[in-house]
């Protein structure tokens, strides 16, 4: 319960980007990511142009500059991996700051970093301007398999409930004098995790009964039918279209 009222990734607002239907934004992000991935890594200026496009979107959505970098930590493991490649890579080598690095490795690292960063920033912009629930409704409208949408929806709904249950179990352990300090305490934690799994599984069964009781027959009913106009599609798809134009020019 104690969680904040807005989702961490979502930045409430009324900008034109916020107002676009989720399905348009989703498709725009996927399209943009595909163009980015298809760009040859040597076309350095194309990547700069892509970054500019995203900066434009962020400005239109009135997202403060500090908002995006803080949410990019999710990329960190990939970055670490990318930094390793030039060190352990084979082939022609060059010396940077006294360290011998592989040239193909550097290119590979750049490739991963540039493309992953652009993709992550595009997703952050999507999440910042679209409520999680709307993203799922958009996915449903784009004919993403219903089962996947439902799984994501239930995760969104029950994550807090399960975290709360986990917290209560931890408090119960600690109030009986247990503190996880080293590896020997692992079995206790593992048993708690098992108990949490069983509880969540049983809750799942009860939720399913509640759904059946209200006429669920395998499909989520579409409650708000937010259809997008041609103009909205055009606005949203301007992003991947512009990226595609950049790609075309760079080839």
């Amino acid at each position, binding site marked *: 319960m104690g969680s904040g009222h807005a989702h961490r990734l979502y930045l409430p607002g009324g900008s034109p980007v916020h107002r676009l239907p989720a399905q348009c934004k989703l498709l725009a992000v996927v399209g943009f990511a595909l163009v980015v991935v298809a760009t040859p890594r040597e076309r350095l200026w194309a990547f700069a142009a892509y970054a500019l496009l995203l900066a434009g979107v962020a400005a239109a959505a009135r997202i403060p500059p500090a908002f995006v970098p803080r949410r990019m930590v999710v990329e960190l493991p990939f970055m670490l991996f990318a930094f390793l490649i030039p060190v352990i890579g084979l082939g022609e080598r060059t010396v940077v700051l006294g360290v011998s690095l592989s040239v193909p490795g550097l290119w590979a690292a750049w490739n991963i970093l540039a493309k992953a960063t652009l993709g992550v920033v595009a997703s952050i912009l999507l999440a910042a301007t679209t409520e999680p629930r709307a993203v799922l409704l958009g996915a449903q409208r784009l004919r993403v398999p219903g089962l996947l949408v439902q799984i994501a929806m239930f995760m969104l709904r029950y994550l807090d409930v399960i975290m709360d249950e986990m917290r209560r179990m931890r408090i119960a352990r600690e109030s009986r004098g247990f503190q996880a300090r080293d590896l020997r305490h692992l079995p206790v934690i593992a048993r708690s995790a098992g108990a949490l799994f069983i509880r969540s599984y049983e809750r799942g069964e009860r939720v399913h009964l509640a759904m059946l009781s209200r006429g669920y027959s395998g499909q989520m009913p*579409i409650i708000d039918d937010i259809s997008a106009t041609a103009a909205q599609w055009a606005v949203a798809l301007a992003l991947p279209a512009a990226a595609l134009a950049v790609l075309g020019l760079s080839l």
Partner: protein
Amino acid sequence: MLNSLEVSRLAYAYPDGTQALFGVDLTIGRGERVALLGPNGAGKTTLVMHLNGILTAGHGTVTVAGTPVRRDTLKEIRQRVGLVFQDPDDQLFMPTVRDDVAFGPANSGLRGEELEAVVKSALERVGMLEAADRPPHHLSFGQRRRVAVATVLAMEPEILVLDEPSSNLDPAARRELAEILRSLDVTVLMVTHDLPYALELCERSLILSDGVIAADGPTRDLLADAELLARHRLELPYGFAIPAAQERG
């Protein structure tokens, strides 16, 4: 006039062979508010699961407003029997209150303005309209239970079945829920072992004990019979005396 609910000689054994119900007979007329009392393990929840066909009778029949509960009538039955579960987190599974209340009616095909009107009226009846756009996990427990009642009211059920409606509520939330339940113009079956709550809300009570209906009569009379209560592991809370005159109808 048809009765809202008729249960006749209902028996049920769980797949592992445990017999939970041994021939339950009960009838609830339209507009009645009835409490189903019984100790833990009496078979209350098992009985409730039969009322909307989640469990199917081993023997005997359940009839809701003239429609028997059978495999081919399930869809209709589930619309007519509104089950409110004990834990509102089990019942409220959609991202917002509005979506949750809309879930049932949308499943039966309502869309657009019609759907919006049904949702609004159901939330109004439980006094939760202003919470429509909030996610359920940001509401207090009492508010969540009221929304759970709204999700079921939105289906315009023939009978509202509440499983332990007063559990985990603080005194104010408990009173608010009682006021809401009293204001509803719908048949109610309330499963509980909260005897004062039954007395407050229901004129008639049934005692389910060891899988059969052991007593059926005015709540006031049943609760006054200390020996009957003791026989079925029921007792009034300490210091509770049945008020002399019933000031509420």
